[in-house]
């Protein structure tokens, strides 16, 4: 099972992404609806990949990404922005940071899975059946 963490303030969005990924049987998914909770879960859950929203109240996605990269235990976790934010400035800023991809909402699960798999295989993450 590959572990995925979603950090997004839209709880319903998190819920359905989790359900759709988990129904495939390949993933164990957790989610957090704010940046601080996300950082805490990331430290304990040790996800193989993080799906991170950009625009969140309090700590935004870019701040969360910086914190993840400052922490040795989460430094190497690939982060994918999954966001409704579409402006070029944010995309450029995101690309200058250590994120692996920038996916715009809404996204079909099939496409999301393809991207996740591509990144995970690049990071050498293989499925470990529980």
């Amino acid at each position, binding site marked *: 099972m590959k572990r995925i963490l979603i950090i997004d303030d*839209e709880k*319903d*969005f998190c*819920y*359905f*992404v989790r*359900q*759709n990924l988990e*129904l495939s049987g390949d993933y164990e998914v957790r989610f957090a609806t704010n940046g601080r909770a996300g950082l805490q879960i990331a430290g304990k859950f040790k996800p193989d990949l993080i799906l991170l929203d950009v*625009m969140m109240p309090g700590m935004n996605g870019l701040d969360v990404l910086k914190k993840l990269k400052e922490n040795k235990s989460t430094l190497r976790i690939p982060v994918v922005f999954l966001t*409704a*934010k*579409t*402006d*070029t400035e944010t995309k450029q800023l995101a690309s200058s940071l250590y994120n692996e991809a920038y996916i*715009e*909402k*809404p*996204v*079909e*699960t099939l496409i999301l899975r393809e991207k996740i798999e591509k990144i995970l295989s690049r990071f050498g993450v293989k499925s470990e059946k529980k």
Partner: protein
Amino acid sequence: MEGRNVEAFPAGSEVSIRDIKNSTLRILLVEDDEDYAQLLSFRLKSQQNPSFIVTCVRTLEEGLECLKKESIEGVLLDLSLPDSRGLDTFVRFYHEAPTVPIVVLSNYESDQLALEAVKNGAQDYLVKAHVDDRIITRVMRYAVERKRIEDNLREAYEKLKEAQKELIQSEKLSALGRFAMGVAHEVKNPLGIILGATEFLGLKIKNQSDPDVQTGLSKIKESVQRANGIIQNLLEFSCPPKLGKEKVKPEEIINDTLELLKYRSSLANIKILKDFTDKGNYFINVDKKQMEQVLFNLLVNASEEMTSGGTISLKVYETPTSLLNKHANLSPDQSACVIEVIDTGPGISKENLSKVFEPFFTTKRNRGGIGLGLSIAKMMVENHQGDLVVESEPGKGTRFKILLPMEQEETLKRR
């Protein structure tokens, strides 16, 4: 032009002033009183700084004819002519020749008439009995100079208005951009939830064979994609992406776009013809993705208008810009690459043709169109210093031309 006494004062004759220098003014004198016309001509021709060339005619009609034929810099206009009387003479003349300075001549000293004439655009009002050499010279010189200044001012004002319009437009676009980005964020989030929930329901009930449920779910997904497409269009219109230019062959853009459209159902009955006259022996410097988007848009539009089939021809050729109609963005000393999309569809009515590039104009509102596709396409081509133009007649199909400038280097690199 009606003549008058040829010996004494031939109609339309030019009274040249000796020793014409750079400060020569060409004056038209519209006066039916021959003696007075001769006197005034004499007075003018005796001047040297400036010197005058005077053309004399005796009717309003002759005066207007003369203006069309000669390059006249100022007019002395008698108000009492055989074919026109009073202030109406001036009004009619000015209406036909608003750009030429006109000084009114009258037998009567009337402040009211003088004021009316000036209010209507006359440069000055002269009572014939008071005209002497000094006055006529000064008045004509000042009238021409004042008119020049007026014209310069008007031109500057027009430029200012145009700049203000552009500024307002750019401010509007900027505000629209901020608005669109805000809307995009607020709408894309719920769209993400709808899509996720729909997929989830689909997975949960996939073993149930009720076709109505599957149709319903797929319609929801399609609608999400459509709504998302509209938002993308709004964003592209209001926040155009930066150009990532590369050297590319025009036919490569066409072939790659056709590849994207391969499975599109609206193109199933459409025959595509390709005519690459120049055999793709040159490159253009463009953002390939944007040009593909432009072409994609034109092809989808064309195919959607040909529901019972037809032909779309794609042509590529190079042409000197001078052979094209005037297009603001294209420099006349450059070559242009032209990509034509010609369809055999129903064509566009004259009324709609002038609006096709207007934002939010659509004839497909009931089919989900919001009218941004062509305005975005035109904007994208214009951002490449090119132009997108359309020619169409009802029943005769439509021809879109993408005109793109070719750099000197690109022309030289022809192989």
